């Protein structure tokens, strides 16, 4: 047999998960010096992972990155298998058998839990459920969120927390021309929520959201954002953190928190009598140094009990410890957004405490020993940090390692690659879709959005999508 990676002995790689990391890994392989065949398998019909089902609908520019991913799907080396659940429809062992390498890029699919009493009360949700629901993810289509209480609480202060708070803060008019799913818009239209608390366990110098996300809280049509001026007073260690030469981003975030702590200037009147300043009906409160310790309620959430925290330790190593001082807040809705973790996949090692696949620069390891043929990239490789482009550098690192292993990957046996995938899926009567079929669905979504002035109206049921193809 000729050399692995030549035209008549292509390097065959299966990639599990068609989010940004999966696409970047595919692109890096196709643009390498070797001849390859890349088979990208995705659980949903729709590709693009969190760019489609995570990125907020009111951030349309970020979604433009999809255009780049669609170009990556064009080369003949690229094959797409949508609506295929790896682990059920086809196993990791099947993929290893039929490919030289398998790259797992399945992201961090679940939320970390608070681990406090009452967490499972009705009205207590994960932020990702809500995000996936308003973004039309088919697995979350039937979730119900009761927006009839005036107060909602979001635990955590990262970008996902910010997204959830912003969607709750915005009017339907601010959202109706985005690609937010219609079923979500219909529920948001009836929302009674007018007090939104975004609560973090640490202080304003440790803010985890980007300044861009934070800035948007000053631009809401019908919601004012507040920070208690007492809460932007820093301890010495936090001042040192901000003064650090790498502290530019944190300084910017802190300045914005301080802006929100300033007294509000009256808004211009919006109606007669024109002398009466407009009072925005919704309020967003960003609060620091509090951890929820209990959720209370009779069957459904009624009250959140917080413990106030104090920071201790050296700069950059400060931890938040409970002070024993408790506070109560009446609330009917709570979203936790305190971190994400991957879910294990049969046949792939998993680090349970960290919620990632153990690896060295993308080579999957088990008990610190490299597992042949298996690689990983994206959030399931390094944990849930970074944004879309971060995954490009991450996937490139993995592919560089894979290329170094090329001799080891050549077991001199013929790998059937996509032919065998078709065979296995056909035998199991799985209705999988290729990229051309996805593009048909995509066109329908765009068409369906047009009458409403939306960039697209997503299909939220898999059967609806498949129905277009038969």
């Amino acid at each position: 047999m000729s050399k692995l990676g030549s035209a008549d002995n292509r390097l065959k790689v299966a990639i599990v998960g068609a989010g940004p990391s999966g696409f970047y890994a595919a692109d890096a392989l196709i643009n390498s010096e070797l001849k390859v065949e890349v088979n990208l398998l995705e659980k949903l019909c729709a590709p693009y992972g969190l760019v489609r089902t995570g990125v907020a609908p009111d951030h349309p520019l970020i979604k433009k990155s999809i255009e780049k991913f669609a170009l990556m799907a064009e080369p003949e080396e690229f094959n797409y298998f949508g609506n295929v659940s790896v682990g059920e429809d086809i196993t990791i062992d099947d993929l290893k058998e039929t490919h030289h390498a398998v790259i797992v890029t399945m992201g961090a699919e679940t939320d970390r839990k608070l681990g406090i009493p009452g967490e499972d009360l009705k009205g207590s949700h994960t932020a990702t459920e809500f995000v996936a629901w308003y973004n039309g993810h088919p697995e979350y289509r039937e979730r119900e969120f009761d927006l009839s209480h005036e107060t909602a609480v979001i635990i955590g202060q990262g970008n996902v927390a910010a997204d959830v708070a912003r969607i709750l803060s915005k009017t339907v008019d601010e959202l109706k021309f985005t690609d937010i799913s219609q079923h979500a818009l219909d529920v948001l239209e009836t929302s009674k929520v007018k007090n939104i608390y975004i609560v973090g366990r640490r202080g304003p110098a440790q803010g985890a959201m980007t300044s861009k996300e934070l800035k948007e809280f000053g631009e809401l049509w019908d919601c004012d954002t507040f920070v208690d001026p007492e809460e932007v007073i820093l301890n010495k260690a936090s001042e040192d953190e901000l003064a650090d030469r790498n502290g530019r981003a944190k300084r910017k975030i802190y300045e914005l928190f301080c802006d929100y702590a300033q007294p509000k200037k009256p808004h211009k009147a919006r109606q007669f009598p024109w002398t009466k300043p407009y009072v925005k009906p919704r309020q967003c409160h960003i609060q620091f140094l509090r951890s929820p310790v209990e959720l209370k309620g009779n069957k459904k959430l009624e009250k959140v009990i917080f413990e106030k925290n104090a920071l201790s330790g050296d700069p950059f190593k400060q931890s938040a410890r409970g002070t024993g001082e408790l506070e109560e807040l009446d609330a009917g809705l709570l979203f936790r957004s305190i971190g994400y973790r991957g879910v294990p996949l049969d046949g792939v090692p998993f680090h349970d405490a960290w919620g990632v696949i153990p690896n060295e620069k993308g080579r999957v390891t088990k008990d610190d020993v490299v597992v042949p043929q298996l690689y990983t990239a994206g959030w399931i490789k390094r944990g849930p940090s970074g944004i879309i482009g971060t995954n490009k550098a991450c996937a490139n690192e993995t592919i560089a390692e894979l290329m170094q292993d090329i001799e080891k990957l050549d077991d001199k046996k013929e790998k059937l690659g996509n032919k065998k995938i078709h065979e296995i899926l056909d035998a199991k009567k799985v209705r999988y879709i290729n990229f051309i079929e996805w593009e048909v669905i995509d066109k329908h979504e765009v068409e369906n959005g047009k009458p409403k002035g939306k960039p697209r109206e997503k299909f939220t049921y898999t059967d609806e999508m498949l129905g277009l193809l038969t």
Partner: protein
Amino acid sequence: MTTVVTDNCRGCRFTDCVSVCPVEAFHMDDEMLYINPAVCIDCSACVPECPVEAIYEEDDLPDGQEHWVDINEERSQETPNITETLEPLEGAEERREALGL
């Protein structure tokens, strides 16, 4: 709004930013990088990557740096696209130290 490469890049050209750009918006001449505002999606992934803090979101630009918005727009049209991280320019480390970064 866009994201802009400014003065500090000149003579350094570390190009770390390029490795995280999801849309390949960077262009390059012999001195420095530029961002094509028509391609940039404002994700800001590049901002923290720059070892010399040369990259800013447009509305965060320090006073006196606003002219870089136009320079990025113009020069990105005239210069080649760069999609992979390169070796920094000679003297980049010295310049970084001189900048106090």
